[in-house]
Structures are given as structure tokens and as C-alpha cells.
């Protein structure tokens, strides 16, 4: 069943706004951050108006309400990604912090000089820099699964990397530039066979695909609320409980402890062991509402809608003379179209499109090495979500012709 797009768009108040008089916003930047439905905005608003209190320690009504809203959201997130238990769902600030949590806690306890970590050439900076930092500190080795000309991971090269017995394989489930949906289950299976632990960057996949962490057999899985209709400031690290139990705490402070003496402490049980200090409570409530919202529509239907839009967008963009598209064909990618327009810098493209209310991103999208690989400093990127329409794609294409005319 297809989405009732008009009904869905009514849930997103921002899509009604004008960026200047008579110019309605055409939001094609959901890969950077998604817009928020009124259900999420209201849930957070209600929390602050009715239930705001600090969680876990209080016994008064508001504190109990806040605690059960915060923990209830965790239960819903666990169900949404099919975690075996909500103890395996750690609240963080965002995907970046989730990856850093693994790098600081698991990796510093388990990796030593010379140990190999396999990444890919299509990683976001958030899945590169934490490992660069560990490399400088520990002398670990890094190697990379190459990206092919058509934007796919070279799995044969991956298999030969695995013969060097890596300790960790960390890769993105879906590229934020190419849109490539990587064969995560296969990559994980091969890594496990080689004895490696696996971390998946799910920042782009969880918002757009039905993700089942148990079916994937991921050891760690990281994602952010703000790309999946939720608020900024909160993300998730899923980890298998056996791994999380064995890891040292990450940040120290309140809530992550069971007992504190003047000279020592005992860490709390999962998931609280990794959640020091007052967390983003309202944001957790918002994330819970976002999960409810997406579930009520259905991730399969959302994915199908995005696929239809993406297929149409690639087809239309290809028609524009001078446009070069990056990434695989529509059947192998999510709702992302990164492109260059010959003779015009992506910033100029984005700026001129903005005059017609069209919001696309321009730059290296925090994936500088990937752009270097393709020999370009930057791309323009249009990205789609459940509220995107074919009419919006048409406006983008029309806008590109206008850019060409100006730079003609």
C-alpha cells in the first residue's frame, strides 16, 4: 500500500512554511537531519508542560512519570530495532558519540598496538576520526574496504583484508553521500568468521529501512534520533549485552554508579553504566514518539516510497546536461542523490536553488576521503524521506536548469 503523502505532509508543520514571500520550502536535506512531525513536537512539549522532573532517584509523582517516559522510550527503541533486551539500548548524544563510546570503552580495553581495524572508504568522518585518534594513541592499524567506481564496497578486497585477522570491522550500513545500502548481514557474517567484532554506523539506515539488529547479528549498532523524525541531542548505541557487560564505563558521574566511596566506585548495571549525568530526557521522549510515528506508518512502506522517489529523481537528474551522479543505481541505494553540475561549484548550485526555496546540501558531507577518491572537492546532495514528493524533484530539476542559465 502506498503512503498517503498529503496526510503525511500535514504532520510536518515546517513543510508549510515559506522561506520568502510566496516561496514554499522544498526540503531535500533529510540526510543531514529530518523534519519533525507534530506528534514528536507535541510529545516533547507535553513532557515539559506536564511531567518534567529528573529521573531515577526521585520518588515523587513527576519523577516517576519522567522516569517511566524515559525508560518507556528505551523499550520502544529496543522493539523498533528488535534488540533482545532494552538493557542493550544505550542513550548517547548522537551516532558520533555512540561510535566514540565503542572507541573509548571497548576498543581501549581490547585493542593494542598492531591490531587491525577495518573501515571503508565511504565512511562519514564520525567513523574515521575516532579510529585515527586511537591509532595515534595506541598504534592500531587501519585498513579500508575500497569503494568501486559505481559506489559499492569491493567485497573481494574485503575478503582478502579479513585474512589479516582484524579485531574490529566498522562500516556504514548506508552511505550518506552515495546512498549505497551495504550488504550488512554478509559483511558481519564474514567478519565474525574471521573473529572480528563488528560496529555498524546506522545513522542513515535506521531512519529509512527496517533494521533488525539480531537478524544482522551486529555486535554494536549506532544511530541518531534527529535523522528519524526525532529531536537532536539524542542517539543510540545498541550493543550485545555480553560485550557491554565486559566493557569499562565510558563517562563517569551520577547515574552510572551503583555505589561511590571517597576513593572508589562500583559501576551500575546495564544500560545505566554508560549513561552518566542527567540525560536528554525530553529528547528520549521525543525519540520514543518518533519510533511510534514511523512504526504506525511502517518502515517497509516508507522504504518503498523513498525508493519510488529516488528512482524518479535519478531518472530526471540524468536528463540534465552536465549533471554527473554519484553512487549506485536506485535498486542498490537509499534516498540520496549526490551530483555535480559541470562548470558550477556545488555551493553556487545550492545557493541559487535556495532562492526558489529548495534546500539541498553542498560540500563534502563529512566524507572528505570519499570525495577525494572520486576526484572532486564537493557535491550537491538532494535527499528524500517519507514526506518527499515527485513534484519536489521536478522543482529541483527546474532549478538546475535555472542555475545552468545563470552560469551559461
Amino acid at each position: 500500500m502506498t503512503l498517503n503523502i498529503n496526510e503525511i505532509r500535514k504532520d510536518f508543520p515546517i513543510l508549510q512554511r515559506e522561506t520568502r514571500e510566496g516561496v514554499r520550502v522544498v526540503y531535500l536535506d533529510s540526510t543531514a537531519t529530518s523534519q519533525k512531525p507534530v506528534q514528536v513536537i507535541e510529545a516533547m512539549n507535553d513532557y515539559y508542560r506536564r511531567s518534567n522532573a529528573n529521573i531515577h532517584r526521585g520518588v515523587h509523582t513527576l519523577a516517576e512519570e519522567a522516569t517511566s517516559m524515559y525508560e518507556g522510550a528505551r523499550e520502544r527503541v529496543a522493539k523498533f530495532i528488535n534488540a533482545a533486551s532494552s538493557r542493550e539500548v544505550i542513550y548517547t548524544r548522537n551516532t558520533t558519540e555512540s561510535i566514540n563510546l565503542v572507541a573509548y570503552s571497548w576498543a581501549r580495553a581490547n585493542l593494542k598496538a598492531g591490531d587491525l581495524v577495518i573501515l571503508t572508504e565511504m565512511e562519514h568522518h564520525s567513523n574515521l576520526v575516532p579510529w585515527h585518534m586511537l591509532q595515534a594513541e595506541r598504534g592500531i592499524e587501519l585498513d579500508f574496504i575500497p569503494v568501486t567506481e559505481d559506489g559499492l564496497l569491493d567485497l573481494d578486497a574485503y575478503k582478502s583484508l579479513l585474512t589479516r585477522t582484524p579485531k574490529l570491522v566498522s562500516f556504514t550500513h548506508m552511505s550518506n553521500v552515495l546512498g549505497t545500502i551495504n550488504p550488512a548481514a554478509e559483511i558481519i557474517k564474514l567478519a565474525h568468521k574471521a573473529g572480528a567484532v563488528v560496529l555498524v554506523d546506522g545513522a542513515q539506515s535506521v531512519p529509512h529501512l527496517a533494521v533488525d539488529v539480531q537478524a544482522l547479528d551486529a555486535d554494536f549498532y549506532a544511530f541518531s534520533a534527529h535523522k528519524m523524525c526525532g529531536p537532536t541531542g539524542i542517539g543510540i548505541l545498541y550493543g550485545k549485552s555480553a560485550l557491554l557487560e565486559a566493557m569499562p564505563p565510558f563517562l563517569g558521574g551520577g547515574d552510572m554508579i551503583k555505589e561511590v566511596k571517597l576513593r572508589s566506585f562500583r559501576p551500575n548495571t546495564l544500560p545505566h553504566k554508560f549513561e552518566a549525568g542527567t540525560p536528554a530526557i525530553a529528547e528520549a521522549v521525543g525519540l520514543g514518539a518518533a519510533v511510534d510515528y514511523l512504526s504506525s506508518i511502517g518502515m517497509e512502506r516508507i522504504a518503498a516510497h523513498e525508493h519510488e522517489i529516488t528512482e524518479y529523481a535519478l531518472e530526471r537528474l540524468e536528463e540534465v546536461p552536465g549533471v554527473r551522479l554519484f553512487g549506485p543505481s536506485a535498486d542498490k541505494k537509499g534516498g540520496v542523490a549526490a551530483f555535480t553540475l559541470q562548470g558550477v561549484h556545488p555551493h553556487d548550485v545550492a545557493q541559487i536553488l535556495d532562492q526558489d526555496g529548495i534546500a539541498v546540501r553542498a560540500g563534502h558531507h563529512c566524507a572528505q576521503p570519499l570525495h577525494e577518491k572520486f576526484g572532486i572537492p564537493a557535491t550537491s546532495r538532494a535527499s528524500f524521506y517519507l514526506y518527499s514528493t515527485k513534484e519536489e524533484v521536478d522543482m529541483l530539476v527546474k532549478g538546475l536548469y535555472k542555475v545552468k542559465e545563470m552560469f551559461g
Partner: protein
Amino acid sequence: MDDLYREVIIEHYKNPSYRGHLDPHDISFADNNPLCGDHIQIDLRVNGEGIVTEALFDGHGCAISQASADLLMESIIGKPLEEVKKLNKQDILDMLGIDLGPVRLKCALLSLKVLKAGVYGLGEAGDDLVE
């Protein structure tokens, strides 16, 4: 927009008069705008009285960054280095004849930052150079 992409900017972007390298040169410096990967290199020749006699830039980036570099080269030829050191944000905006938001301002100011870092002999083209 039509303000932002005034003909003068498109013209200097498409047909720059001061694009190239000087070899030998007295001053040469290059840096990037980390936000968008724009890159500018500037080479200068300076005579015994400290006056800029030749100036060329090279690099890649958006129309705003490249056009402002071209306009900047044009404006400093024949000027003493002491005067070049005094150039600031407003001078660039006056040359471009437009007003810019905070993001695009970085594009416009990259060439001035690179120029001043080169003239002062600094290792990095910092934001403080153009305030």
C-alpha cells in the same frame, strides 16, 4: 539573487584576469576552507620598497570565493604591503558589492585570509586576520 550573482561576480569567476602562479615569487601561501574544501593559493612579487608588483591566485571553489580572489589580486597590485595588511572584511564586501550570510562570508574571505597569512608569514589562514 540576482544580487548575489551579480554579473561582475560571474564574470570574474568565469574569466579571471589574475589566475596563475609566479615563479619565482617573494611570497606564496595556500590554505583551504575546511567547510567546503575551497582552496586558494596566492603568489606575490614585492619590490625593494615593499610594494606589490605582481599578484596571481590559483585554486578551486565557488563563484564567490574565486571571484573575490580575482578582485583582490587586482586591488593589491601597486599597493605597499603595509596597506595590504590593513585590508579587512568590509573591503572585500565593498569589492563584491554584495552582502553575505555567515556561511558564504567564509567563501568570500578565504582569499584575504590566505593573502594576509602569507604577508605576515603565518602558518595558517585564521579567521582573526579579517575581523
